[in-house]
Each structure stands twice: as structure tokens, then as C-alpha cells.
């Protein structure tokens, strides 16, 4: 058995243990942060080491191919970003700070497992590792009732959705007798028509995955959890957790050639269209920036599914580019909220942002860039992602989701520009918390994210070339 192939997993796990050991000896926020950053860095670097032996199958459980490496790299960088954004957020709070980083590493570990999952066992393992870490992180501010409430909501709903997922997987196993994606694909191939068990199983899997992705109509938890969770954790849920689940969904669906099952595709399309419409419509009604972004991220998963539905090389390419753009943008947007928060609360009401541009021009400019990217304005990463997804959709003649995407984007303009307009309003002093200095860690992360946003937006060719090579390696 070649353990080298799971080097990144081991490094992440080791880093989590190290953080816990270090805090047992002496609590120190900076040490925990440094160990975490180091852990992510080394794990990221190790991707190149194991990249040489890709594609490689690890005991039929985990597959190491360029696709999994790419998604792993993405979630690790996102995790690193969250660590940078969280440092200041935790520093000004009166909590035990160090455990946060251990949880962060474990959450990313779960995501990395999902990225390479090729078996029901690893799929479920990844989902649970990720979710359990998130339970802790969402309710991390233990004296904040909203944070606790969000944590409990997430525990209940994520538990329920895991049950759906597990039951669905069990039904598929009942019919096919295998938990391995590849073997399952060949068994289904032989069967021609999928049995009732498989179809019901797939439906339950779709529901379970739908919960994790917060696509409508499984989106109920999203706004409350996003609002209540600490801003860096919200960023983590919105990026790492969703990227990993999307990756496993793509691998599962492509491997078993799910596109053959018209009903399943139709169901996914309904989810996509509903997400785009409901997400955007509900976002129109919100007066709270975190909730606006929560609903907008529901819509964004809908956009992403347009590429997924289109399938084929272009579709998967679109999904991956979209994931990168969405991760950068969402991290940045929630990062800004986190950086603006003070020791007692976060700046989450729209009115808190009044005149921000004149008060803190750089933060507001970065936030504006993020919002424009979410709105899909050219020269930002968000536009590039939307463009490729749209291209795939038009290419596959998926007119219904494509039109929904256009309608949804048009609706989206309203609430994104509303936030921007508020920031640029002739501001009379902002009274809310958190008008302090810009912390170095957060400022650095935000600068890099903004630069990446424009770099990808202006010249996406390098990213596209990387993504192209990835897509070819999907089985």
C-alpha cells in the first residue's frame, strides 16, 4: 500500500494534532495560527509530490488524480484564507482561540477526502468529518446566542441530510451490491434500466447533497446559519464545504454516467432553476448583508449547476472555473464582513455600511470588487465563471436553466448594487462596531483575493489551461 498518495491528508491531520498538542502545552494564538498556516502550506506543496504519481487509486477508496488534486488545492488555499481572515476576528474576542484552527484543519481534511472520494465510505466519511468540524465552528462564539442557535440548526439539518444521503447510498448498494463508484458504473451499465432502488437512492442522494449545497428547496438553513455563524466560518461553509461537495457530485455523476437518467437530470435542473430564482428573489427582500450574501450564494450554486447540467468537457470546465471564481469572491466578501467586525458584534446590517467608502476606502473598494464579481461584471473572476458556465449551457442547448441564469443575474444586480450604493452614499459617520485599524493578516488576505479576482477576470487563460488538463483526467 502506497501511503504517499495520502500525504496531504496526513499532513493536515498531523497539523490539527500539532495545534492541539501545542495548546495543551501553552495557549498561544500566534503559535496556533502559524502551525495552521504552515500545515496548509506544506499540505499544498505536497500536492506536487503526489501529483507525479497521479492518477492513482488508493485501495478503491480514494482516487488521486489531477481533478482531486485541483479541488484539494482549492480548498486548502480557501482554508488558508479563512485562517488569515479569522486571526484578527478571534484576536479581538474573548474566547479560547486555538481550537478554532484545529477545527479548521479538520474541516479542510474532510473536504480533501471528499475531493478524492471514489467510494460511498469515503464519501460519507468526508461529509461527516467536514460537518462535525463545522458544528463546532459555527457555534464557536459560545456566549453569542445567535451563533449557538445557528450551530444547533446546522446540527439538526445537516444530521437529517446525512441520514437522507446515507439511506440513499444504502438503497443503491442494495440494488447494485457495490459501494465503489467505478464498479457501480459498470453494474449500472449492464442493467440498462436502473432499478427502482437505484432511482429512489439517487433521489435521496440528490436531496442529501442538495442540503449540503443549500440549493432550493433544501436551502432553508442557509440564511440563519450564515447569519449566526462567525463571519470567517460563514466563508468556510460557503466555499470549502460547497466546493468539496460539488467535486464529489461531479465525480459521482460523471463516473456513473448519471446524464443517462433523464429523471435525475430533470430533478437537478429543477433544483438549479429554483435556486437561481428563489435565491435571488429572497435576497431582494433582505436588509442584512450576511443574509443577502447567503441567498446570493444559493443562487450562485444554481448558476454553477447550469454548467454541471450541460456536462461534457465544457460543462465541467465551467463548473471548475466557476468554483474558483466563487471561492475567491465569497471568501473576500465574507472576509470583509469579518474584518469590519468589532469585539462585540459584526457589521451585518445594510445601514452599517452607509458611507463606508469614504471612511475606509480600501476595504470598501475590495468589497465593491467582490460584489461586482458576484454580480458577474466583466473583468472580474465572477464574470469569467459565469461566462464559461453560460457558454456550456448554450452549447448544450439547456435553454431553461440558461434563461433562469440571465433572469437571476438581472435580479441580482439590484441587491448587489444596493449594497454598493449604500457604501458610496454620502456618509455621515458610521456608528457600528469595528472602525479600527486594518489587521495585517486580514489585509494581506483581502489584497491577494482582490488581485486574484482581477487577474482571473482579465486574463483567465492560465486558469483555463490548468482546468483543461484536470477535466481530461475525470474518468
Amino acid at each position, binding site marked *: 500500500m502506497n501511503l504517499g498518495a495520502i500525504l496531504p491528508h496526513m499532513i493536515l491531520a498531523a497539523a490539527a494534532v500539532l495545534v492541539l498538542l501545542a495548546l495543551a502545552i501553552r495557549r498561544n494564538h500566534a503559535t496556533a495560527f502559524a502551525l495552521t498556516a504552515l500545515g496548509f502550506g506544506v499540505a499544498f506543496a505536497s500536492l506536487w509530490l503526489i501529483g507525479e504519481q497521479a492518477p492513482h487509486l488508493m485501495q478503491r477508496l480514494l482516487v488521486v488524480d489531477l481533478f482531486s488534486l485541483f479541488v484539494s488545492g482549492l480548498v486548502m488555499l480557501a482554508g488558508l484564507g479563512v485562517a488569515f481572515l479569522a486571526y484578527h476576528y478571534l484576536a479581538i474576542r474573548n474566547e479560547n482561540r486555538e481550537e478554532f484552527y484545529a477545527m479548521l484543519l479538520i474541516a479542510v481534511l474532510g473536504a480533501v477526502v471528499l475531493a478524492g472520494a471514489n467510494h460511498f465510505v469515503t464519501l460519507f466519511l468526508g461529509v461527516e468529518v467536514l460537518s462535525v468540524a463545522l458544528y463546532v465552528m459555527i457555534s464557536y462564539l459560545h456566549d453569542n446566542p445567535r451563533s449557538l442557535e445557528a450551530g444547533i440548526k446546522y446540527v439538526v439539518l445537516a444530521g437529517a441530510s446525512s441520514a437522507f444521503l446515507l439511506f440513499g447510498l444504502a438503497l443503491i448498494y442494495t440494488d447494485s451490491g457495490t459501494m465503489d463508484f467505478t464498479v457501480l458504473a459498470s453494474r449500472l451499465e449492464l442493467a440498462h434500466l436502473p432499478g427502482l432502488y437505484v432511482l429512489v437512492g439517487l433521489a435521496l442522494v440528490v436531496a442529501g447533497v442538495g442540503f449540503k449545497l443549500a440549493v432550493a428547496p433544501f436551502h432553508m438553513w442557509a440564511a440563519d446559519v450564515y447569519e449566526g455563524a462567525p463571519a470567517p466560518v460563514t466563508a468556510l461553509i460557503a466555499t470549502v464545504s460547497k466546493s468539496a461537495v460539488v467535486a464529489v457530485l461531479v465525480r459521482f455523476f460523471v463516473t456513473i454516467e448519471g446524464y443517462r437518467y433523464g429523471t435525475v437530470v430533470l430533478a437537478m435542473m429543477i433544483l438549479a432553476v429554483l435556486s437561481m430564482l428563489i435565491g435571488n428573489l429572497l435576497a431582494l427582500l433582505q436588509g442584512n448583508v450576511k443574509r443577502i450574501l447567503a441567498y446570493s450564494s444559493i443562487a450562485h450554486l444554481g448558476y454553477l449547476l447550469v454548467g454541471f447540467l450541460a456536462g461534457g468537457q465544457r460543462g465541467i470546465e465551467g463548473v471548475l472555473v466557476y468554483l474558483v471564481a466563487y471561492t475567491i469572491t465569497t471568501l473576500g466578501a465574507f472576509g470583509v464582513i469579518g474584518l469590519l467586525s468589532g469585539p462585540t458584534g459584526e457589521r451585518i446590517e445594510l445601514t452599517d455600511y452607509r458611507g463606508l467608502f469614504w471612511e475606509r476606502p480600501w476595504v470598501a473598494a475590495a468589497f465593491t470588487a467582490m460584489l461586482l464579481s458576484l*454580480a458577474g461584471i*466583466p*473583468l472580474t473572476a465572477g464574470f469569467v465563471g459565469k461566462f464559461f458556465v453560460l*457558454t456550456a449551457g*448554450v452549447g448544450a442547448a439547456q435553454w431553461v436553466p440558461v434563461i433562469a441564469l440571465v433572469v437571476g*443575474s*438581472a435580479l441580482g444586480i439590484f441587491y448587489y448594487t444596493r449594497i454598493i*450604493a449604500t457604501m*458610496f452614499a454620502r456618509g455621515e459617520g458610521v456608528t457600528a462596531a469595528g472602525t479600527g485599524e486594518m489587521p495585517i493578516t486580514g489585509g494581506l488576505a483581502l489584497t491577494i483575493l482582490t488581485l486574484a479576482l482581477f487577474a482571473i477576470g482579465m486574463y483567465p487563460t492560465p486558469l483555463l489551461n490548468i482546468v483543461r488538463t484536470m477535466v481530461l483526467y475525470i474518468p
Partner: protein
Amino acid sequence: MILVWLIAIPIVGGLAAWTAGKAHEQASKWVALFTMVAEFALAVLLWVRYYQAATTSEAGVWLIQWAVPWIPAYGISVRLALDGMSLLLVVLTAFVGLLSVAVSWSGITRRVPFYFFNLLWILGGVVGVFLALDLFLFYVFWEMMLIPMYFLVGIWGHENRVYAAIKFFIFTQASGLLMLLAILGLAFAYDAQTGTFSFNYADLLEAQVSGAYGMWLMLGFFVAFAVKLPAFPFHPWLADAHTEAPTAGSVILAGLMLKTGAYGLIRFVVPLFPEAAVTFAPWAMTLGVIGILYGAVLALGQRDLKRLVAYTSVSHLGFVLMGIFAFNELALQGALLEMICHGLSTPALFIVVGILQEHLHTRDMERMGGLWASVPRMGGIAMFFAVASLGLPGLGNFIGEFFVLVGTFRVNAPAAVLGSLGLVGAAIYSLWIIQRAFHGEPRERWTLPDLNVRGMLVFAPMVVVLVWLGVYPQPVLQTTATTLRGIRDAVTGTVQYDPLNHRAVLPAEEAAVDTVAGEEGR
């Protein structure tokens, strides 16, 4: 490379103005002025240099071209090209840009550096729109000019600015997305026929899209351009945006942004989808006529002077829409001339309104009246541009509208007849402006300073150009003749890329008539 400069000068100038403003607020004005002077000089230089070439070149031949790959995997490149029509519109952009810097000189007192940054970036985007010949790039510029305009209206506008800015943004963005969809549809149609994916204009001209598919794609483009134009029923954003924008914003909106819509119709809708455009022409002309009449009626109903001027644009651009879809050279020439002249006369009126508002703090015509006595010079200027707008013979607007009507009459007499009623409406509202604001008894005791020498200097070039175009429009007609002939040929089928060889759409005598414009000047 010179085309890159045309776009880069305002973009870099905008960044420089912002940076310079950090050191000293006043510096950003001067940087902006210097930038636009350079841009204007370059544009005029190009016009002089390529005037001969533009008049003699073959249709479909570009005067200057420049291209580098951008996203090769999707056949996207940065492709810029210049022909007679875009050359003229770039000159207009530089001129109106210079004007917009001049009118912002003393009126803008808050956030000056950021203001000039936005102003110059809009201009950079507009120049990009006129030069881009890759449809992806075109879309990028199309959107790029919106964001700074959104800020310009939303930050420096009047009372209701945020509402107006968001409305403007949603209208243009939503319609732009439909265009993006149509661009993609076209690219895939080309891909299906040739096996290569491309966004190059020259390639996509070869794409044969017909039937319902072609019609849907054409409509995608049409809606985006009709919103910008604005054509009825896509005009509701216009009055709000124009009214709430700061003076320079209104100047750019009326002078340039609306022209990008007309440009898009001429450059993309007609040549890319000749068949669909011909089928759609009666509808487009109907929309044009409705725009002409409805715009005039709306203008007559306003008390707000700025809103009135805004609605006159709906009316005037209705002529442009009608002229474009008449598909003969005379009407196209008229449409282009109308674009240029409207791009000079309406901004001038907005500047007058802006000055009045700055001193009176109202735009309500009911509260004005009798201003001539205290500001005779401004009254004279307003009078001049009002009669230009009503289409007085001897001024450029007359030639434009006249050509459009004559050209349209040959293909669609009822539209021309109804459209000419718009001239009557124009006469009423134009004179009404003068009568209600400047003549009569003063209703309130206003004391306001008249135009000084600098003020007069701002208007002087526009007066000169409008008279020039009214008396001797030949240079403009000559510059654009080749381009417009190419557009006409795309429809009538004398150029190889036309799929309509057997569908005679226009009367056979058309070819003979089209030489009229050329002969007039000889």
C-alpha cells in the same frame, strides 16, 4: 497599436487623475483635461490622416487593425479595428469627453479625484465599444462603461440619484446579458458550421443563421441596443438617469451612451443577421415611429426642464432607429449624421439646464420665466440649440432628419409620414423651452450671472460644428460612406457574405438613388 492608445489614454488618465487627486484635489482636473486634450488631438489626427483612405477604401476593409490572443481556448482575442464610422464616433467621443471635463470644472466639489476617474473610465469604455471587433471584447467594454456611469449618477447625482442609478444599471445589465446569450448562440452556430469556436466579428459574419434561431439571436442583440438607444418600450430608465445625473453625466449619456446603441445596431444587428433584420424591419421602424411621437408627447408633458430635454432624446433617436432599418444609404447617412448632431446639440441643452439649476436650485419651468432679461447670452445659446434640436434648415440636425425621412419614404412611406409629425412636436417643445424659461414675465426674482467668456467658449465649438454640418456635411458623409455602403450591401445582397441573394427586399431603383448622397458634395 494606435487603437490601443485611444483606449489606454483615458484609462491611464483616469488612474492618474485619481492618484494626482490624492496629492492635490485640483490636480485631478488638470490631469483629466490634459488627458482628453491628448485623446481629442489623437482622434482628430487620425481623422485627418485617414480621411482619404476612408473615402476611397473598399467596403469591409479596415483602416487600422490590431489583435492579440486573449483566451485562445475559446477563440477570444483582443481585436480592435477602425473604419470610417468608428473613426467619426471616436472623434465625437473625444470631443464630448473634453466637453464633459470642461463642464465639471467648477460644478463638482465633492470627491473630485474619484469623479474624474469615473468620467475618464466611461470615456475609455465608450471608445472601446466603438473599436472592439471581437464580440466578447465588445461585451466587456459594453459593461465596462456602465459601472463608472453607475457611480457617476449614484454619487454625484441629484435628489433621487440612487434610484435612477440602480434603474439604469438593471436595464442595461439585463439587456446586456441577453446580448451575451445571443453572442454565445452565434458563436455556437459558427462552431457548428466550421468546427472552430470564435468570437471574431469577421468570422461570425460568415455564420449562416436563419429562421427562428437567427431571429431570436437578432432580438437578443436588438434588445440590448434598443435599451441603450433608447427605443420604445425600453426607454423608462432614460428620463430618470438623465435627470438625476450630474451635468457631465447627462452630457455623456445623451452625447455618447445613446450612440453606442445606434452603433451596435449598425455594426452588429444588421450585418450579422441580415435576413432576420429584414424580416424585423417593419417592426423596428414602427418602434422608431412610436419613439419619435411618444418621446415628443412625453417631452411636452414635463415641467422639469431636464426631464423634458431627456425625453427629446427618445424622439430624436427614434429617427435614428427608423433610418437604420430603412437599409438604404441615404437613410443610414442621415441616421449617422443625426447621431453626431444630436450628440452635440442635446449635451449643449443639458449644460444650459445644468447652469440654470446650479444658480436657481430648481429645474421646474413653472418657476422660471423671463430669464432672458438677466441672462441674454445664455438665452441666445439656449435658443440656438433649441432650434437646432427642432431641425431648423441650415443646422446639422435638419440634414440628418431630412435624410432619414427621405430614405425611409422610399421603403416605408407611412412610417416616414408619421415620423415627420415628430418634427412638428419638436418645434413645439423646443420653442416651449425658450418661451417658458426665458421669455414672459419673471415669476420669481432670480438674479444669476450670465455666461462669461469661458462659458461661451464651451458652447462655441458646438455652434460652429452644427452650422458646419448644416451647411457642408460632406466630410462626415464621405468618411462614413464606405462603411454604410457595406451595411446596405449586407442586406441587399451585392456582397458575398449575404445569404439573401434571391430575396429582393428593396426596390431595384435603390442602387441609383444611393448615389445621391455622394453626388451632392461633388
